[in-house]
């Protein structure tokens, strides 16, 4: 039994070392090495992959509620307490789901819009509808939202609920 356990640990170690080397290979060449276990390679790759690129523009989600004949901006920050700006924005982008597929991403935004609508209704805000859009705007040395103005913003409509 003890021998079996020892052999098992060495087999696991060998798999781990192969995963690390395959992760490095994938990080460098963006190709899976033959026979390497894909989930482990990807796990290792994500351990080696922070901060690979940067964006030329800033971006964030815009939530608006329809009330009294006009769209009013909904402040989403209170729904993401304790999170720093970058983490809040990443949460709102639903990036992981974006990788799964376009349809799933749309469904997730729909669920987000529904959640916002329900929470805002519970808080007594009488929105008849909530819509989500993705906004991008040029960066500025004066601040994150300095150029988040109508003339610079590029807006992509996402979903509306109900």
């Amino acid at each position, binding site marked *: 039994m003890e021998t079996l356990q020892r052999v098992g640990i060495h087999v696991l170690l060998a798999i781990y070392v192969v995963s690390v080397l395959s992760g490095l290979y994938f990080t460098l060449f963006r190709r899976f090495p033959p026979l390497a276990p894909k989930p482990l390679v990807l796990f290792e790759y994500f351990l080696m992959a922070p901060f690979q690129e940067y964006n030329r523009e800033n971006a964030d989600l815009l939530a608006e509620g329809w009330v009294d004949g006009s769209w009013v901006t909904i402040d989403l920050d209170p729904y993401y307490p304790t999170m720093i700006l970058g983490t809040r924005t990443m949460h709102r982008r639903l*990036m992981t789901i974006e990788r799964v597929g376009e349809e799933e991403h749309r469904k*997730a935004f729909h669920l987000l819009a529904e959640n916002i609508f329900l929470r805002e209704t519970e808080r007594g805000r009488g929105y008849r509808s909530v819509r989500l859009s993705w906004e991008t705007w040029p960066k500025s040395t004066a601040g994150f939202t300095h150029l988040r103005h109508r003339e610079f913003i590029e807006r992509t409509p996402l979903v509306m609920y109900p």
Partner: protein
Amino acid sequence: MKIIMHSLWQQWKRFWMREGPPYLVATVRIVCGLYLLLYVLSSFPHIPLLYSHAGIAIPNIYSTPAFVHPLLQLPSPTVAWVIYGVILAVIVSFTLGYRTRLSAILCLLGLTYYYQLSFHNAPATYHRLFFFLLVAFLFTDAGATFSLDAWWRFGSWFHAMPAPVLTQRLIAVQLSATYLGVAVQKLWLPDWQDPTMFFYSFQDMWSLPLAWWFVQLSPPFWVYSLMLFTVKLLELWIPVGLWIPKLRLYAIASGIFFHLIVSLFLSAIWWFWIMPLAYIVFFEPEEVEGFIDKFKETLWYSVSFVCRFYNTFLG
């Protein structure tokens, strides 16, 4: 050929499985436990907003198998508080070394739950590092000393039996691989060849006041190029230097300097402090045992000195 293979096998076994004093791995357990505790406590007191249907979290029901979806339904605020309490309790139990392996497994389940419930929307390398560390602790009895288990079993907090170095080696190899992978790809990634990398990165959602102040100074672009070069150099040097005993302290100093500087400019790296905190794994267990012995000696000497001083002059 046979001799070479035999020698390689012996080296492999010695590297991963040799036995040593368990103080090092117990220290890493306590550091990691405290760090995870800080991480989970950072959500307090907003648990209902973050992890229940009182908030707007989007669970990962899109890339997980259907049989786990019932578990990923956002619970009521009361249930969310109970789950939070249980997760805190298992992290405390892991830190204190009470049924350490079981606690590590429960911590892993707790963090996986939070990840799939909410954190998956902002996935970060440090999440995976947390998972990896907890898995690594399953391979050695990290609660063999400095633990409640040792206290109850042997009546001493310092009781120690030799244990395999496997866990510390796994963590050391992973930290090196992470630094190295990050560094090597920066040698060819197109954005990392361009000095505007930091110029633009200091104007985005991760930028801290120091980054904004710096970018507003409008320094010449060679300053950004120098920063880029320094980051690449440090990330290449740290994982190599940490393995060389004579250079280890310089590598540790470089690592702390690197994390400190980046943390002052960009908030994205804040939770990566688990990496420098775990640098102890690059020492040999005997070195840490020697350090602890010296520390205990100094501590006893100081206590007895204070007692004698008190008895002589004040008692």
